[in-house]
């Protein structure tokens, strides 16, 4: 009996999490940034947005791949959320005051050379 409890616990949790995949959507879009520091900022900021399950930003292509729960958020809200981090997406431009507060190396519009 004890054995059955362990086994059923394992498989029920397994199935439960497979179920939750059904509500998940995977998307990829442009988020402007420059360097490793931007990658860190973009990924940390995005994963903390409500409903976002997974975020990975690619330095070279400037594309973010993400998986989100379509019941908890919409793509538009995510775009807006990312732009509020200071990084413009192909839908929303980052507000200038936030953009200007980015670390120097992340100023993708006018990278300054010292």
């Amino acid at each position: 009996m004890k054995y059955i409890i362990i086994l059923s616990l394992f498989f029920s949790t397994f199935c439960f999490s497979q179920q939750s995949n059904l509500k998940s959507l995977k998307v990829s879009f442009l988020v402007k940034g420059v360097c490793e520091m931007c990658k860190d900022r973009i990924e940390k900021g995005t994963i903390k947005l409500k409903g976002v399950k997974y975020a990975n930003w690619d330095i070279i292509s400037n594309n973010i791949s993400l998986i989100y729960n379509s019941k908890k958020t919409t793509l538009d809200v995510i775009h807006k959320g990312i732009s509020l981090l200071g990084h413009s997406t192909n839908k929303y431009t980052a507000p200038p005051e936030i953009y200007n507060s980015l670390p120097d190396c992340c100023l993708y519009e006018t990278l300054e050379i010292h």
Partner: protein
Amino acid sequence: MLITLVLQCSIGFSQDYIEGVISYKNESGEIIPLPGVTIFWQNTSTGTISNIDGNYKLLKSNLSDRLVFKFLGYKEESIDVSNKRFYNITMLKDENILDEVVVNKKRKTIQKSYFKTQNITNVSSDELLKAACCNISESFETNPSIDVSYSNAVTGVKQVKMLGLESPYLLITEENIPMIRGASQVYGLSFIPGTWVESMQITKGTGSVVNGFESISGQINVELKKPYSDSPFFVNMYTNDMGRNEINLHSNKIINDKLSTGVYLHANKNDHINDNNYDGFLDHPLSNAVNFFNRWQYINPSKGTVAFFGYRFMSDKKELGEIIENKVFIRYPWRGEIRTNRFDSNFKFGYVNPSIPYQSLGFQMAFSRHDQDSFFGKRNYDINQNSFYSSLIYNSIIGSTLNKIKLGLNFSYDDFDEIVDQTINSYNRIDNSIGGFFEYNYDSLDAVSLVAGIRYDIHNNLGSFFTPRFHLRYQPFEKSVLRFSAGTGRKSSNIFSENQNIFTSGRQIKISKKLGKFYGLDPEKAFNYGLSFRQGFFINNREGDITFDYYVTDFENQVIVDWETQGEVSFYNLDGKSFAKSLQIDLEYQLSNNVLIKSTFKNFDVKKQYKSGLKINPLTPKNRFFTNLEVSTNEKKNGSKWKFDLTYNWIGKQRLPSHTELIDFEGYSPNYSLFNSQITRVFSNKFEMYIGGENIGGYTQSNPILGGYPFGTDFDTSIVYAPIHSALFYIGLRFNN
């Protein structure tokens, strides 16, 4: 009218920008776009960088008409901008600049992470090279977290300790499959050739619930070389002045883009009779061994699958004891022999859903058969263990990747057959268990992360029980990290295989029989908790760090191995207190580009309640000091360089079990120092040679063999506090293709 207005507007707009494509010519003359080029107006601070397609676009400047293009390793270009809007540039390689680029930061061979929740030290294969010989039990000699000492005066076997506790309290896994346990407890580490190892992960304190309930003081995981990533061909040869010869051959082949295989062969032989301390006994056994391993690796990135299959044979023979050559005996000489044959095979499979990268499934199973036949004088010890282990693990997230979970099942089966001192007893036992675990991992991605795990096991001899474990990491500043861990662990004590020193003594075995399931004894249970603080710093622009570790292991139940009475060894369950407290302070500093210094101080307080009272654990130094100096010259273009390594160990006094021949010591061994050194000449990326010395100062224990008549009960080779050999020198080579 309207049309001209629009045209004018667009012209006016476009005139504000300069744009173009930056490229370079590759070796075959093709024009390739060059991303990441810095473009700026001369004498100003405005500019941009080229994107992935080599495109750039920037506003015209009022301050300058000259545009500069810069990229590391390429010649700087500049153009005078006139009325044109598009300027395409081809950058030229600058051979001179490339030579001057020097990467200063070297990868350290022992790495401690600021980000991992658990206190894990990663040991790379480069660190293993520092102890050129021969297997992983010896490789820990340059590692400050683990103590290595001889276990007795005749078998040449070294034992490892962590946090002041012997290796049975460590969980030793090979690629996360529990490996060195039961029958292989004493000799197991010496059966893994050092060159087969890709890296090792040493966890201090309680481990993860994923690998079972057995780890008490910590965990050592050994990652072996993988056919896909290891070099196609490798040879290592080693010889020393004590007559030990070793050879390692690796050959790897990538069969197609998915399948690769590797064959790893190790052999060693020693037929020199050495008796440098003139006690009539061999200082090290005469030995020969072969070890063969074949593994297959399958990777399919588009489907997200990876699989390994491997099998291995090992045969090892050691002859030890009194030297009979050129001697007349009026009694039988005391001789011994240990023959071990082992077979291992394992299969692993992993799946990561390529479209849902945070979900993965892993399955592994392993079978091993370990067969040891040995005799020592009139005593004998034979053990045969068949083991099967299997685990299934599922990784996923709750909500987002900030909250990760691991969920899984383990099954293990062990069948032991032992014959002890022929006339006394034979033991056989079957252990089997099934367990389920759940581990939750939270990572705030900045200051805080934690791992909380729990497992439930149903074991035929240990009963059914929970094992909770908890790890917390707090990183208030970039270079400061505080870690806390706590958890329980249990194990069945295989009293004979874990304490094979008994058989190289004349001591009589006494087991106080209760109704326990393990030789009449109850299993061991302990609680381990600890705190670690690490602070990184920069002095003179050089990196360094200091780490404080304090760990406590409290035994609720333990099998006490009592060597306190001369002529006997007794086993009984703990009745009272038993604890191991360990303090370790590590200091590491990069003195210059080429010099790294590491120092460690350790203090152990390990005591247990014997029938004769609460006593310090014997043969455990109270204090230890360790320093390692690593020097290397700058690497030339072809990879050639020199590497120098010097290790100093100071071992404080140790309590000795009482023996009439040790009466002068007044219960404690003297403290002593050891030096090891190695010089490696790297001729190129493919070939290197090394020479080195162990115990260069030559400190040895004067009387490792006690008791005179070797068939009497006072005979003892197990009270060993210092090396048996004096200085040992070796030479070897490595070829890598």
